Structures are given as structure tokens and as C-alpha cells.
């Protein structure tokens, strides 16, 4: 009953898509209206934390090399850290504004983990291409959570953060176990399953 690896990517893509929708809605209505119902204020930070928790079983059951395992472990940890920091700030348990830097830190670590654990060039096969795309999306996209940390009410930073999550969702939805990318598939990658 264990899902194929592709489906795990697609389920995480759905998580990132929902995150993007929550953040976009918050940017549209503003923090006052968004936080009028207490559960809504905690919605996306707890979602980030939950996705970090769910990354642990992915690390345990779906990784087949040390580098892969370390990358998934890093994503699990930084997602939990970023979600927990946002929750702590919201709840008033954390007071220092520096905790807001947990999210851009998570982006940077995630991006570097993507780029370091992909050993093949961009057009080796689709997953290699997507790893490079996701890595650079997180590294460059870290600018938006950083701006949000510096100016929490700046709409551009909040919308930008939502759009980065949307790009991540699209990239994860495009993932296949083994497939060509723009007509390129290295013979070293093996035969596509479908």
C-alpha cells in the first residue's frame, strides 16, 4: 500500500499549492481580517510544520542513497523549524523578530540541499532538471521571505512568497520517476517506465 515516489511528490505539490493559496488569500485580505478567526492565523504555519513532520517518513521509506537521505532530512528539519518559529511568534511565545529569519533560512537550506544532492546536469532527465529548477527557485525565492521578515506587512513580499510556493507546486507536479525533459533523456538514466 506504499505509494510510488511520484505520488509522494504530487501529494507534497498539493501541500505547497494549498500553502500558496493560504498565503495569497492572506495577502489579499490583509492580516487583520485573516487573523479574525484564531484557527486561520495558525493555518499556514502549522501546515508548514506538518509538511516537515511528514517529510520524515519520506526520508525513511523513499530515499535510496545517503545524499538523498540527508537532503530529505534537511528539508524535514528546516520546514519544522520555519513552521514552529512562525507559530511561536504568532502565539507570543517567541519575542525576537530574528525568528522571522527562520523562513528565509529554510528556503536557503532547501535550495542548497536540492542543488547539492542532484549530481547530474540539467538535461540528464526530468527529475534532474526539476531538482535544479527547485534548487534555484528556493535560493532566489528566499528573497521574498527575507523581505517579509524585514517588512511583514509588505504585500509584494507576501504575494511573492505565495507565488514561489506555487512554482514549487508546479515543479513537483511535473515530476516523474523517469522521464525525458524537453526531448532529452540520457541513456545512462535508464528506460522510462511508462
Amino acid at each position, binding site marked *: 500500500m506504499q505509494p510510488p515516489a511520484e505520488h509522494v511528490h504530487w501529494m507534497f505539490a*498539493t501541500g505547497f499549492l494549498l500553502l500558496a*493559496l493560504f498565503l495569497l*488569500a492572506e495577502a489579499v485580505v490583509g492580516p487583520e481580517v485573516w487573523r479574525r*478567526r484564531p484557527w*486561520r492565523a495558525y493555518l499556514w504555519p502549522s501546515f508548514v510544520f506538518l509538511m516537515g513532520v511528514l517529510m520524515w517518513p519520506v526520508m525513511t521509506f523513499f530515499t535510496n542513497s545517503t545524499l538523498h537521505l540527508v537532503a530529505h532530512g534537511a528539508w524535514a528539519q528546516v520546514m519544522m523549524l520555519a513552521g514552529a518559529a512562525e507559530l511561536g511568534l504568532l502565539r507570543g511565545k517567541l519575542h525576537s523578530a530574528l525568528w522571522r529569519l527562520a523562513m528565509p533560512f529554510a528556503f536557503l537550506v532547501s535550495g542548497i540541499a536540492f542543488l547539492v544532492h542532484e549530481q547530474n546536469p540539467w538535461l540528464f532527465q526530468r527529475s534532474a532538471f526539476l531538482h535544479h529548477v527547485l534548487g534555484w527557485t528556493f535560493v532566489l525565492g528566499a528573497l521574498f521571505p527575507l523581505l517579509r521578515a524585514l517588512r511583514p506587512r509588505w504585500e509584494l513580499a507576501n504575494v511573492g512568497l505565495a507565488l514561489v510556493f506555487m512554482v514549487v507546486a508546479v515543479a513537483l507536479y511535473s515530476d516523474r520517476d523517469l522521464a525525458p525533459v524537453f526531448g532529452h533523456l540520457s541513456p545512462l538514466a535508464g528506460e522510462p517506465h511508462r
Partner: protein
Amino acid sequence: MSSTATQTVATRAGSAVTTRRMRLVSLIGPLTALAGVVWAIVQPERVTLLHPHGETFWWLVIEPPLLVMLAGALFHLLVARGLLDDLEEEV
């Protein structure tokens, strides 16, 4: 301009902004679900549920176009509706 007139103009401007926000929020979920529908039309082979050939649960149900539709629907039903109620109180 008297202070009452200034307040009226400010109230109208505020209502217009809230109405625009309501429109945007009410569109997010349906547009997301529509993106899933368009994807299913462009790549019908992704929706194996409509033409099953002995696939297992994961290959039948957990397909990206269906997940995108589900995300849009869930957002609209569980989040957007409440937000719209809260925004309506502001008008």
C-alpha cells in the same frame, strides 16, 4: 470639504476596496479548480479514473489534475467562505 463628507468618501473607498478583495478571494478556489479541469482536458491520460485498466488506488485517485481540483475545492469550502463572511462584516 466638511468632516462628514470626508468620512463618507473614505467609507465608500473602503467599501470599494473590500468589495474588490471579496471578488479576488471568491475567485482563488474556483480558478484553481478550473486549472485542474483544464489540465485534465489537455492530458486526459492523467485521469485514469475515467478509463480504468486495473490500476491501483494511487494511480487512480492521486493524479495531479484531480489533486489541483481538490485543493481549489477545499480552499473555497474551508477557507474562502469564512473569509468572505468576515469581509462582508466590513462593508
